[in-house]
C-alpha cells in the first residue's frame, strides 16, 4: 500500500490540522521510522495551505 512520506518538520506542520472540513491529518510512523500520511488525506485535501503535500513522495507502507 502506498502512503505519503513526511519529514519530521512536515509532520509538525500537519498534526491536528484540518485537511478538509471536520477531518484532521494524523501522521504516524511506519516500521522503519518514517512519518507518513495516507493517500486519502492527500486525495481529499480541500485546504489550499496544504497543497504542498501533493508534491511529496509516495512510499510503500512497511
Amino acid at each position, binding site marked *: 500500500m502506498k502512503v505519503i512520506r513526511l519529514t519530521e518538520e512536515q509532520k509538525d506542520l500537519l498534526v*491536528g490540522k484540518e485537511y478538509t472540513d471536520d477531518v484532521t491529518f494524523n501522521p504516524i510512523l511506519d516500521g522503519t521510522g518514517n512519518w507518513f500520511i495516507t*493517500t*486519502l488525506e492527500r486525495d481529499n485535501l480541500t485546504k489550499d495551505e496544504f497543497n504542498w503535500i501533493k508534491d511529496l513522495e509516495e512510499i510503500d507502507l512497511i
Partner: protein
Amino acid sequence: MIIQPYSYQSNNIQSSDPATAFNTAAGITGSTATAITQLVSDLKTNGLWDKLIIIYPFVGGTATSTKFNLKNPQNTNDAFRLTYSGGFSYSVSGVTGSSNALANTNYNLGFQNTLFQQGINMSIGAYRIDQKLTPTGQPTNRLYIWGDITNVNSTSYSYWTFTGTTNHNFENGLTSSGAVNVTGQTGTTGYFVSNRISTTSHKAFKNGVQFGNTNSSSNGYPGTFYTWPSRNNPMGLFVAANDGLGNYNSDPTINFFHLGYGLTDTDVANLYTIVQTFNTTLGRNV
C-alpha cells in the same frame, strides 16, 4: 408553559424533534431525512430510544454529515460528535477507515463512576458491510472496529477484533477473561452487538441472534482500573489502541453504530430489525 420532551440546539437551530434536529444539523434532506424520522419513531415505539446514548447513522456521505450523534445532534464534543483524524472514505453507504484512521467518539468510559460507564451495563453495536476474508497490514491480520484511543498497545479494555472471517473477539469494558470469542464464522458483515447486563453476563450477537457463548466471568470490578481520573479513556471507531505506529488502526466500512445501556435479548433482536429496515430503505443493507 409547555415543556417539550426533547429540545436540541445545533448550529443555532432549535427543534423539539430529534430527527428534525439531526437532519438540520447534518444537512440531510429527502428520502434519507424521512428514513431518519422513521428510525427515531421505530426506536421510540420499541422502547429503545431511551436506552441508547450514542447513535451514528452515518448518512449523507461526508465527514460533516456523519459526525453527528442522533441522540444529541449538537456540534460539540460533549454531545459525543465524532472527531475524525486520518484517512477516511465517505459515501452514502457508510464510512471506511484506513491505516491511520481514528474517529474519536468523545465518549469516555472512565469519566463517571456508573455501571454504564464501567462497561457493566452497556451495549455496543456496529453494522459492518465490508467482507474482508484475509485482512492484511495489521498485527496478526486483525481488523478493529472500536477501542480505547489513549492506550498505546493492545491492552485496551474495550475493543473488537476480526481476524479473517472466522475469529471475532468482543471486549466490553473488561479484562480479557471477560471477552466473548467467536470462532467458525463465515464472514465479517452484519450488525454486531456486544452486550453486558451484569458483571457476569457478556454476550455477543450477530444480526439480532446470539453467537458464541455467554461469558460469565466476573469483569474484576470494583477497582480503580475503570475510575476517573485514573482512567481517561476516550473511545474511538476504526481503532483499538493508539500506538502512533498505525498498528491498531483499521479500515472496516461501518454504516451504523450505537452505544447504550445493556439490552435484553429481545431488545437486541428488535434493534437489529429496526436498523436492518433503516439500511434497507437506504439501499445499503447486507
